[in-house]
């Protein structure tokens, strides 16, 4: 059932390809001290809010696999993105209030921090933690939180228009 649902949402899912493309392009206008936002969070948050926990976790895992291929080393974004997709999906089932600007920004900040901390822990285990890890963490979370109301609202609007069946 979930797979059928995902298939129906094929072209909406295809928009997930924008995430690795934006991560690679990393437009300079959207950087804070040479750090870009967590594009995965900005895409996954509205998707999970709209489509629920199972879809959120699965799509989060798929997105993480795409992103993991872009950087060297065994560090993975999969646990964090799958967990965030599940959590946001559950939250989305409970309340529509979360889709307002401030809750979206806060959820995006938390998501960016969770994603960053998961990477910090893995890098720490490998002994290759950047000196400026805290700086990267905060810059990315701040930028993601600032962009979330705009970007996530836009995705929510588009997906609700294109997929009338969703909640």
């Amino acid at each position, binding site marked *: 059932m979930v797979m059928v649902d995902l298939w129906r949402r094929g072209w909406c899912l295809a928009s997930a390809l924008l995430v690795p493309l934006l*991560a*690679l*392009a*990393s437009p300079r206008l959207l*950087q804070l001290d*040479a*750090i*870009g936002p967590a594009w995965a969070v900005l895409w996954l948050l509205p998707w999970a809010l709209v489509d629920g926990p199972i879809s959120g976790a699965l799509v989060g895992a798929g997105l993480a696999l795409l992103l993991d291929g*872009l*950087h*060297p*080393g065994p*560090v993975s974004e999969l646990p964090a993105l799958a967990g965030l997709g599940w959590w946001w999906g559950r939250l989305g089932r409970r309340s529509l209030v979360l889709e307002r600007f401030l809750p979206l920004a806060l959820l995006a900040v938390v998501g960016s921090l969770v994603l960053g901390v998961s*990477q910090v822990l893995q*890098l720490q285990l*490998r002994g*290759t*933690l*950047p*000196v*400026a*890890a805290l*700086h*990267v963490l905060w*810059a*990315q979370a701040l930028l993601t939180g600032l962009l979330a109301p705009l970007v996530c609202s836009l995705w929510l609007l588009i997906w609700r228009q294109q997929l009338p069946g969703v909640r």
Partner: protein
Amino acid sequence: MQAGRGFRLSPQRLLLSGWPWMSLALLLLAVRLSKGAGLSDLYALVSRPFWPGTAQAEWLRAAQRLDQQSRLQSLEADNQRLRRLLGLQQAAGPLLAAPVIARPASGWWQQLLLGRGAWQGVSSGAVVTAPGGLLGRVVAVTPSTATVQLLTDPGSRIGVWVARTGEHGLLLGTGTARPVLRFLDRDARVRPGDLVTTSPASTLVPPSLTVGVVQNLDEQAMPAPEALVQLSAPVAAVDWVQVRR
């Protein structure tokens, strides 16, 4: 007798009437003793509009560059021959120019994406240089792209040495613009401004590629002194790089 007395001058009058000539004589003496100082400068000032134009200076510079290039080629050929005799790593393979098509700004990894890949003969481990020196190594290759791990990446580790003192060290990326050079000897004699190159004995990267300049030295670091290195290749500005296949 009376008439002759009128031509006699007293020493004071002689001095007064002859001072211009004496001054001139002193001036000439000064010019002579100073090897033409003043005179040459005066000549330079007067003749400045007629000096040779910049074209001639450019010719001289071009000739000098040509001379230096030919000497460099000759020295490189000698170096290659000697390294072959000693069985050491060769300095240069064929070079491939590659465009930089992405600079991901994740903050966790310092990497570049090049628009050349396996189809063009790029392989994992290939060394990437830019005007200024070494940038990093290729760590992943797709048919049409290659991912370069920069020297600033936290996972980057290459052997380098300081040519002035002949000391070896390990260049460790820290995720910032300036990697750390960790020396192997406790008593490092390095000082700020020393040039850092790849190690002549390195098996991973070609020898004697410019890496950067020592910026400051922490002699108290344990277990061995550490130095911050300012990389010589401008990573942020470079749009084309060279891959040594």
